[in-house]
């Protein structure tokens, strides 16, 4: 897609912004990276509503976002992007301290019990569970729904959809601990640097198994055996640089009208030799015991299986003298330093949190922060996440016909669950696998069908106005005649009865149930952050009001009907 094709989906420039904002639109013409970074840093401040001229992207005090307390719908809308739900405490907090400080607090929020430790505490490490996923879905739901650090949980879910591992593809002993160790690693590294993150991903036992890097051996001239190319290919195609050379705004570079490949088959074959010699950090004599702690440690290098001779990562030569760890370092340093990473990963993070079809200028602003956080650090994930969430294009409600994003089914369910305070008193979290497309969500955490995620970042729904206008809308890859029905039926069951020991708390709703418009407005505000029109609120309220409110049972039906209709409303399902 060209920049030109994209620009008209950008929301109109906000009237009150300072002139600095113009710089961003013209940034492609600024040649020097330093100038670009400065422009972007200025734009970030501008995007925050002030533009005080401080070229460093600054601490919270320099952030003018905090000077104006957001309204309740604005705060709820922000929480729908920066987390999952507008819980009462988060709403109050955002309204009192502002967007940027709330993000700072969330960056520093304590982590709750790790997935690994929870599984151990629940006895899932018994011999009978050696090949079992028992407990894995439960602990993922436990944190996605129950953990207060919702920014971290939201970002981890997003990262799990970029650096995809699926528990369905782990045919090894202790797959539950491999999955747990992987998600714990994402939690630990999601607010560090990209370089730390990609190393964590690369050396994690789960990814090692999922993309066959674990156990990958050097070539053997006698038998003709070659190193496995799987990880070498996907670490480039999916996790760092992508298939095509990108401009800083995420649009593809072209030569003679064609996109330019980032690598050749030969370069994959070369890189595959770097990713040899790694295996679980446990001695083979011990693998039949009950020590599965290697699933939370990086894999370790076995020099006898490491490819000999000179190697290459893209055009960078790795000398034959480099051992496995040193070669790996050069490979990851080189890939992480590639100019594609900022726009490639930045655009996908925007898509996961804010909008399916961000303007090139938005991607460029985020990519510039990725390249330099203002203090010379590349790939500072905190700065990148802040840049994404505080950008004008995120903070302004989109009015473009292709703006926003279809909330993914998981996001809708988790948002509702958090909003109604779903909790598992028995610490069971027995929601299970929600992958079934015709009876559940057609999507379940860490259960993608392949490393290509539930949906592709470039997906454009065919035969639609989105297709005609070439608007990417990844989540629509999951949207079909079965899943639209499966989602509504599943939510009707959850809203009606909860699941297992997890029961929705409708106390606040029941207090409003006699007043149908007030009830519906509450749900609309919490879930849609102002995206539901007055007409839709009236339609729902009118229908809800036909249910009597004379008994507790009838009031409860009003509450449930309102929840389902709000969650069914297209204005809600598409987050603006």
């Amino acid at each position: 897609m060209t920049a030109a094709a994209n620009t008209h989906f950008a929301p109109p420039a906000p009237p009150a912004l300072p002139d600095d904002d113009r710089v961003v639109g013209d940034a492609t013409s600024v040649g020097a990276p330093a100038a670009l970074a400065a422009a972007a840093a200025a734009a970030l401040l501008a995007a925050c509503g002030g533009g005080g001229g401080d070229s460093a992207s600054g601490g919270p005090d320099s952030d003018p976002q905090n000077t104006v307390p957001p309204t309740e719908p604005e705060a709820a809308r922000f929480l729908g992007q920066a987390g999952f739900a507008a819980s009462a405490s988060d709403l109050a907090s955002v309204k009192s301290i502002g967007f940027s400080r709330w993000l700072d607090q969330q960056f520093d929020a304590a982590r709750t019990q790790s997935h690994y430790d929870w599984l151990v505490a629940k006895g899932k490490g018994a011999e009978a569970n050696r090949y079992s996923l028992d407990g894995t879905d439960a602990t993922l739901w436990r944190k996605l729904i129950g953990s207060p650090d919702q920014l971290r949980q939201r970002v981890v879910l997003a990262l799990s959809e970029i650096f995809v591992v699926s528990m369905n593809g782990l045919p090894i002993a202790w797959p539950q601990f491999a999955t747990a160790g992987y998600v714990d690693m994402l939690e630990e590294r999601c607010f560090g640097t990209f370089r730390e993150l990609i190393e964590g991903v690369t050396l994690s036992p789960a990814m090692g198994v999922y993309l066959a890097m674990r156990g990958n051996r050097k070539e053997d001239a006698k038998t003709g055996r070659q190193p496995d190319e799987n990880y070498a290919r996907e670490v480039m195609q999916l996790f760092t640089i992508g298939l095509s050379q990108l401009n800083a705004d995420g649009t593809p570079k072209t030569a003679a009208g064609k996109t330019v490949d980032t690598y050749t088959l030969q370069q994959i074959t070369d890189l595959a030799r770097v990713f040899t010699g790694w295996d679980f950090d446990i001695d083979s004599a011990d693998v039949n015991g009950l020590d599965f702690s290697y699933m939370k440690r990086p894999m370790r290098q076995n020099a006898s299986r490491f490819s000999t001779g000179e190697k290459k990562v893209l055009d960078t030569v790795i000398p034959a003298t480099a051992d496995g760890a040193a070669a790996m370092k050069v490979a990851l340093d080189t890939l992480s330093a590639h100019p594609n990473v900022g726009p490639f990963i930045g655009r996908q993070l925007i898509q996961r949190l804010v909008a399916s079809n961000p303007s090139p200028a938005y991607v460029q602003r985020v990519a510039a922060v990725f390249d330099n956080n203002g203090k010379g650090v590349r790939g500072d994930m905190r700065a990148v996440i802040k840049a994404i969430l505080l950008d004008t294009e995120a903070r302004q409600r989109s009015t473009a016909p292709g703006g926003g994003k279809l909330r993914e089914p998981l996001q809708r369910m988790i948002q509702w669950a958090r909003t109604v305070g779903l909790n598992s008193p028995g610490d069971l979290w027995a929601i299970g696998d929600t992958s079934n497309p015709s009876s559940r969500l057609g999507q379940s955490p860490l259960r993608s069908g392949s490393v290509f995620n539930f949906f592709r970042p470039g997906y454009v729904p065919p035969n639609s106005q989105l297709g005609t206008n070439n608007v990417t809308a990844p989540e629509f890859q999951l949207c079909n005649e079965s899943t639209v029905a499966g989602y509504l039926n599943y939510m009707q069951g959850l809203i009606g009865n909860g699941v297992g020991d997890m029961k929705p708390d409708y106390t606040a709703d029941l207090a409003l149930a006699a007043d149908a418009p007030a009830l519906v407005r509450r749900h609309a505000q919490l879930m849609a952050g102002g995206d539901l029109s007055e007409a839709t609120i009236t339609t729902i309220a009118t229908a809800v009001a036909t249910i009597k409110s004379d008994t507790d049972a009838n009031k409860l039906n009003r509450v449930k009907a309102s929840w389902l209709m709000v969650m069914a409303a297209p204005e809600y399902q598409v987050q603006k």
Partner: protein
Amino acid sequence: MTHISKLPALRRREFLKRASAVSIAGTAAPWALQLAAIGEAAAAAAPGDYKAIVCLFMYGGNDYGNTVIPYDTANYQAYANIRQALAIPRDQLAATALTPSLALPDGRQMALAPTMNRLKPVFDAGRLGVMLNIGPLMQPTTLAQYKAANVPLPPKLFSHNDQSSLWQSSRPEGATSGWGGRLADQFLSSNGNATFSCINVSGNAVFMSGGQAVQYQMSAGGAVAINGANKSLFGSAACAEALRGMITGERQHWMEQELNRVTARSVNAQGTITTALSTATLQTPFETNGNGLASQLQTVARLIGARASLGVQRQVYFVSIGGFDLHDNLMSQQPVLLGNVASAMASFDAALVELGVAQNVTTFTASDFGRTLSSNGDGSDHGWGSHHLVMGGAVKGGRFYGTAPTVAVSGPDDVGQGRLLPTTSVDQLAATLALWMGVPATDLPGILPGIVNFTQKDLGLFTG
């Protein structure tokens, strides 16, 4: 009603059956209206003119080397030397060694994977053909041309998502129409109900989207009704009605509109599909336990059995099975997957014979790409050309199509480690299927722009 005598016997019989059904259902309707209904019923329900293609996609890139295996002594030995630990012992291939009606040149012999034994009788019965070394090509390409990169090559070779898209649409990821859908575009007007022109029983595939044709996606279990929009929502009919209106109405925002369009299609089609499946009878057993593909093909067979009530004359179906990206565990997992494919296809073949439509339905396999012939220790890596199957009563089966590749690393067909440079293009297969469906040769470029680069547009897969 003299004009009706011009209908072929089969059509007239069907017409009379339909006519009586319509007249019973609509005794109170004005005669003119009834006539119109009868005309539509007859047009939509002529079974002699029914044709469907079924794309069976093996996601992940199936390893060709262990699917159709060299069996003559010399080539088996070359295969075993290259594959090492990935070689299937020759004695295990005896039962599935193929005896084609037209022998391969140079004494070449091939065998199906041992777990595909259920397809051997279908091959022997002449309803299954094997297409050798087929894959996406922009034009006929020699190895020298590939190495020099002096002719157009398929973009993003060896990449899963792009090559599965190329197989389905002739374009890499991001394509918005596939050749199955574009083929269906040609027939939308002859289908009484266009919604059921393209039915995907396994999710979403670009193959099935045309310029106008929209894929109808359902699960193997059938169409799903939206409970809350049906009669009442939490006891309230008014809420159910409001819900129904809200999720199916026209919207201004493009994403909301697309969401509601899908939902409206779901609501509108659900009753028809459910009724059709409830009336369809099928005796042929499918081994659906642990084999989702068998469930999908069973549902396709039942839908084909109910084609009259779906109002269709030309259909495109899509079914799929995943798990073929076997960089590891090739020897333990591929046999299971191929066994599932063979079992599902053999049952499907038997079901179509039972329904009397074996001549009317053609099934073909496809996959992201083939793989390397050389081993990475426990599996193989992404390749290009591969061997595929084509099945149906109209297929001249019991034989091979295309050219058997040289079994060699760095051989004349190898672009690296036994990745095959295809000698037959997917466009040629697509054109052959389109011609069989009744697309005029002059219309082929509209469906398959790349076909103009190939002299041979019909692979000769079909009888008559």
